[in-house]
């Protein structure tokens, strides 16, 4: 009888102690190095069924599946480039947010720098012309009066 009571007491104490001692939350995945690679890749890959979201940001089931696929490849020790190549072969360039440099995207990648060169050249011409300009003719009295009048209307 006493034994039984003691048993119950010990059991209660143990349970209480357990509930006091908080447990460490387990990471969703155990391999930290693999997870880092998965994280890095999933911010550059597109969720194929969403409007416009990366795999990392998407809660869609298909995106989660694709992340799992990436994780399996990463666990096998494949490099970033190998994984991306594999996914591009399967899903096309659409899957990657960094478009590849190829003949159809040359304009995309070079465009901004071409624009900058054109803009810089225009700026250069403009500055040279402005510097070469003759000094301003001062406003005539009539013009000054007009400016005042217009500004104070």
């Amino acid at each position, binding site marked *: 009888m006493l034994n039984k009571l003691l048993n119950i007491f010990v059991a209660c104490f143990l349970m209480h102690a357990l*509930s006091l001692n*908080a*447990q*460490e*939350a*387990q*990471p*969703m*995945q155990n391999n930290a190095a693999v997870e880092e690679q998965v994280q890095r890749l999933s*911010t*550059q890959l*597109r969720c194929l069924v969403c*409007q*416009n*979201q*990366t795999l*990392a*940001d998407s*809660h869609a089931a298909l995106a989660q599946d694709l992340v799992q696929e990436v994780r399996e490849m990463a666990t096998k020790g494949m490099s970033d480039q190998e994984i991306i190549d594999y996914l591009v072969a399967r899903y*096309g*360039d*659409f*899957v*990657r*947010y*960094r*478009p590849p440099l190829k003949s*159809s*995207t040359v*304009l*995309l990648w070079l*465009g*901004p720098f071409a*624009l*900058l060169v054109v*803009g*810089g050249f*225009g*700026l250069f011409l*403009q*500055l040279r012309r*402005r*510097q070469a*300009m*003759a*000094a*301003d003719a001062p406003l005539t009295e009539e013009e000054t009066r007009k*400016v*005042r009048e*217009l*500004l*104070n*209307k």
Partner: protein
Amino acid sequence: MIPEIGHFSLILALLVALTLGSLPIIGAARGNVVWMGLARPLARAQFLLIAFAFLCLAYAFAAKDYSVLYVASNSNSKLPIQFRIAAVWGGHEGSLLLWALILSVWTVAVSAFSKHLPDDMRARILGVMGLISVGFLLFMLMVSNPFDRLIPAALDGRDLNPLLQDPGMIFHPPMLYMGYVGFSVAFAFAIAALLGGQLDAAWARWSRPWTTLAWVFLTVGIMAGSNWAYYELGWGGWWFWDAVENASFMPWLVGTALIHSLAVTEKRGSFKAWTVLLAICAFSLSLLGTFLVRSGVLTSVHAFATDPRRGVFILAFLVIVIGGSLALFAWRAPTVGRGGKFDVVSRESFLLANNVLLAVAAMSVLLGTLYPLFLDALNYGKISVGPPYFDAVFAPLMTPALFLMGIGPIASWKNASLPELAMRLRWAFGVSVVTAIILPLWLGNLTPMIGLGLFLAFWIIATTVNMVRHRLRGADQSLTSRVKAVPRAWWGMVIAHLGIAVFTIGVTIVKGFESETAIRMMPGDVAHLAGFDFTFKGVKEVQGPNYTANRGELLVSKNGVERTILNTEKRLYTVTNMPMTEAGISPAVIHDLYASLGEPLSDGAWSVRIYHKPMVEWIWVGCLMMGLGGLLALSDRRYRMKKRNKNSNGAELGQEEVAI
């Protein structure tokens, strides 16, 4: 009946807009005072009619009239009233009505605050705005009528997209549209000036406050959208370079260039043609943004091709507006004077260089946004252009722009001396370099990008401090009177520029130092991130008005001291059957703690994501500072409409010379 009255009101508004877009402009060309005088009453009538139509639609939403197709598609009887009203602009047709309403608001505002303008100028401006209104009203009445009936009526509505059921929906779209559409005023001023041949400092002065106000709205609107995405999408991102975001960002970039270029035109009489071109571009990009977002071309080029009526209409409208105004520009711009001479080293040239950088940045965003659409349309395959591309393109363009931003306001007009500037700014340069190296080292992560970002931010702050000290020199008066002696427009610039610095710090720090963890949590489990302990208290079921939710509670503590509680929900909206995540966020100056509840796992555990976002709030505070700077500039006394006597004018003119 009410929807039909609204429909009829829109038809009347179209007739009024047609009159507004024709008679006053013809009157201005012929010198007919009566026709010119029609502009103001017509602008008012147009506003009343469109506002009435808008109220009719809002009434249909509030009264749950599901015999209106648009209401049935975007609302539901269980939707709370504030979202039923916001749902007026939750879909395609209604947001166009909001567009038209806001255009009529701007038109009526211009008509009310333009008494000081010459009659012909005012008539042309209001006329041009009327023509834009014609385009949008025609569009609505022909292919996109919000008042179309659904017969037989639906029993209940299909509900508003759950993503949009948020207070952000009430403020963000109207603010953004106020900005977008506000550039129509700058556009109308530019076209009116081209038509009338009057492009001078007075013209720049008149259109400047309108442009600044539109820019303030756009800045705050974009900021509100970014903040909304941050807490609503559940992954803690604040900008994604999504096409819809880009559509608002391009007019912002060009608008920023425009307000600076206008300053030069007003103060120095230079850059006139360039200013006009920017005004045309800013509004064209706003229209293009509307086209991108509203034609369905973004979801799929092919969906657009199967129902091309809307897209073709907007495309034709774009071609007429942009092509027409550029043709007018090409025809009239050569007659515009060139303005004065200035040196390679001068405030003009720094401003011009930054204008070029901003324009190139806007064009690059345009290229990246449209490129995948064109490739797809031409059958070259589908590609995605996302953050890696835009980040790679944007950083090299913004680095020199931010650097020049520090020098521009300090350099003198016309002719500045480089050695003198270097002498004056050597301390600012040294301090920002040193801080940009020491601070990241102290925080434990120095990368080239972090160093560069912080250097630019501190550079702007240091040069601004230098400039303010310089400006407030002299001891003959008290500091307060010296502060007051400086025009408010100048303080506006100081605050807006500091806003850019604050924004840059936020972006740099959050990108360089954020951390996150994905864990499985049983009730009572503890997770650790960035020195904080997150104890999972379990999940409760919660019943919302039109959703059911699981609410997870996380107790946050540090070194055993309780700090805050994060409540994060996983909602299921019952009508649309769409899951949504409500993040639990504890915002603070130093960092945000951000948690979002994932999926239930086996044996009562849940997947949870926790993010530590240092200084992320600075991003939005920086944007608010830019907006505040704009407002301060608007409150400058030279824009106040008081009647002044002639004697005070001279003194005021003299003072303004020093303000940009």
